[in-house]
């Protein structure tokens, strides 16, 4: 093994490690819902290559209103799926789409794009 090979191997392994850590193990952006005057838990979510915030904490039994603003035209994010709440929505680009739901049970409920690649979750407490 020559020096170049050793360098390529080390850089490659380090890069692979970084990819795994970055996508699977690094800390996520969490947000708690803000309750409005009317008692609805409101959360604004920007959709651009992912959901920010992507972990949303809400309280059980109170209506939740999620405002998804899709800040891109890329087709990957055009659909929103919340399978546990039977929700499938088209998110038009550069528009806000409201999604209302009433979480009755505590737990973590994922939401994803149509293909399940962009991911976020609703944490009901």
């Amino acid at each position, binding site marked *: *093994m020559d020096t170049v*090979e050793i360098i*390529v*191997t080390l850089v*490659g*392994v380090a*890069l*692979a490690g970084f*990819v*795994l850590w*970055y*996508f*699977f193990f*690094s800390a*996520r952006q969490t947000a708690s819902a803000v309750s*409005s*005057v*009317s*008692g*609805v838990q409101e959360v604004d979510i920007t959709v*651009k*290559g*992912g*959901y*920010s915030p*992507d972990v949303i904490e809400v309280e059980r039994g*109170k*209506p939740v209103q999620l405002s998804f603003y899709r800040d*891109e*035209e*890329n*087709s*990957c994010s055009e659909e929103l*799926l*919340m*399978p546990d*709440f*039977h*929700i*499938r*929505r*088209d998110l*038009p*680009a550069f528009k806000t789409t409201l999604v*209302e739901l009433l979480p009755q049970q505590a737990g973590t409920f994922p939401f*994803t*794009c*149509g*293909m*399940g*690649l*962009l*991911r976020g979750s609703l944490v009901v407490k």
Partner: protein
Amino acid sequence: METDLKTETLDIEGMTCASCASFVEKSLARTPGVQRAMVNFATEKATIDYLPAQATPATLRQAVVQAGYGVLERAPDTSAADRQAEIDQQKAHAYQQLRRRFWVAAGLALIIMPLSMLMLWPAAMQRINMQWLNYGLLLLTLPVLLYSGREFYTSAWNGFRHRAANMDTLIAVGTGAAFLYSLAATVVPEFFRSRGLTPEVYYDTTATIIALILLGKVLELRAKTQTSAAMKALIGLQAKTARVVRPGGQELDVPIEQVQLGDLVVVRPGEKVATDGLIEEGHSAVDEAMLTGESLPVEKKAGDPVFGATLNKTGSFRFRVTKVGADTMLAQIVKLVEDAQGSRAPIQRLADKVSAIFVPTVVVIAILTFVLWFDLAPIETRLPLALVNFVAVLIIACPCALGLATPTAIMVSTGKGAEHGVLIRNAEALEKAYQVNTVLLDKTGTITRGEPAVTDFVPAAGQDAARLLQLVAAVERQSEHPLAAAVVRYAEAQQAASAPATGFRAIEGQGAEATVNGQAVLIGNSRLLDEAGIVLPVAVRQQADALLTQAKTVLYVAVAGQAAGLIGVADTVRDTSVAAIRRLQSMGLEVVMMTGDNPQTAAQVARQVGITRYFAEVLPGGKAGKVKELQAEGRIVAMVGDGINDAPALAQADIGLAMGGGTDVAMEAAGITLMRSDLQGVVTAIELSRQTIRTIKQNLFFAFLYNSLGIPIAAGLLYPVFGWLLSPMLAAGAMALSSVSVLTNSLRLRGFTPLKP
């Protein structure tokens, strides 16, 4: 004036307790012009009667907001149609753009490819300055990268910032690596030459990959728009205007969203019914195929319900509006289908898990591929080989096919189901229906019509049948008893002449009497005749006993003090039941019947429809128990009932099929609702479920196979054995095809037609 009072229903948002409701109610009641406000906490609706001269819907909303609550702008159907139109427009625009980007990429790739091939042709090589050729290729590739492929790079970058990796990540990293390598080879070729490497460029790879992937996306988008075609057709059925009768009798065409509860609406032949209501006058035949899948028009008369979006065929009628907007049958069906399309089938779980970790994993595999090739290949080719295989792994591993496998099939099949009057609540119900091996049918209202019908009309010796039927019908037309209605229906079907009846009198628990054509006519049970002192001849008594042993109800008729005949009445088997049951049995399902009737009647019906196993004398409360009994035998049970008293059994079954008959769509207990009261719907539902799950399995198989074979081949696993390497361009072609083939397979479900017996 009382008639000026208008009613508005608002969806209130944010109420958490009953006191909130009274709070909103008070706020509304205080608003000038409001006569009455009622807020229902459970349904989250406020119903307000107000004077339009003093209050408007806007001021009512304001009052709710002032109380600290919100008014939900529940999208009525029209706005669902509008929203759909807007989304469609945006999608059409995106499609146009995508096509343009594809053509630019394809056009340039077609020039870049032959130019790159020049180096394979030694004679040409000598005349052309390689350096200049490379710069020329670079200039041609830049528009492909910056215009056609731009979205991949921005999307990958946006995703990276969110720690999300999507399919664009793979394409961006793959083509980006090929491009950057080529760029270096173009700008600093000496660096390569000094290390004994030929400064090869991969502009053709970059441009062709982008063109092919865009081609895949164009085809995918085109196919995807077809998956929701059935839903769009459903939403588009909504009438745009309604002809409302004003209190003065004047008729006015108003936009559908202005139609209010309680309005009187006129429907003429050939027109669409604007919204749901009850007919007040007139009669007609209405084509309800769009809601029930029933191809024959349904006769409607005063008192019958009509539904929005159905088509009036022959007559003209007026109906009173009972439901508008989101409460209408059509809106509920649309909502139900939308919900089902948003759900995921359990079969998808594995694909979901794989998708979630897929892209980063592939990136890691690609990096390791690069390292291994670099370390193991001969020194003079190690860099290009490592690079080509790195790119090939990234490009072939598209999870699209995996992601599209289930949802597209579910979208097509739920839409298709709605078209045939089969409403599927969610994907799980679809999957359960596939596994079913036993179908439990509730007899009354499911196998049978659930209402009495005349089965035997037996005139006594010497009686003229037509004349007797005329007399009987004349009396029974005056009666409100369900058995009387059955006799009238029978007489009408036989086209019996009508005659006036006078002195009608209903005798409670026994029957009725009246005078027709100057003759006293008595119809009722045997006690009625006994008490009138009429003796039954032996022949008549024997005939009555025969009817009774067949579990029929017998009506005795006497004319002018003489026994004149018998009428046998029973709940009759639907015309379609026998064929549907035979069809289910031929599909390999065991059909079991359950009824509250005595064993004799049960046996009679079971024999008639070809069922060998049945439960008789099952009390309404015991139905769920029978389902459990079958489940304890290890069977997967589909329970079919008419939804009213069968709810616990429907819920207990592995899959419940409620026969809605167009009365209540929102049947919570059932996984599948059949809009038509006809067992054929059960056949359709199970057949549709089987075809859908079969399609999903094929899709998942191809998607998994494609990725599990594609990645190792791209990584060069076959190279040591066969010397095979996968060109990144071939990988791009294969990837474009993978998602398109999955979509095409799902779209085959559009050709689904229910099996006719």
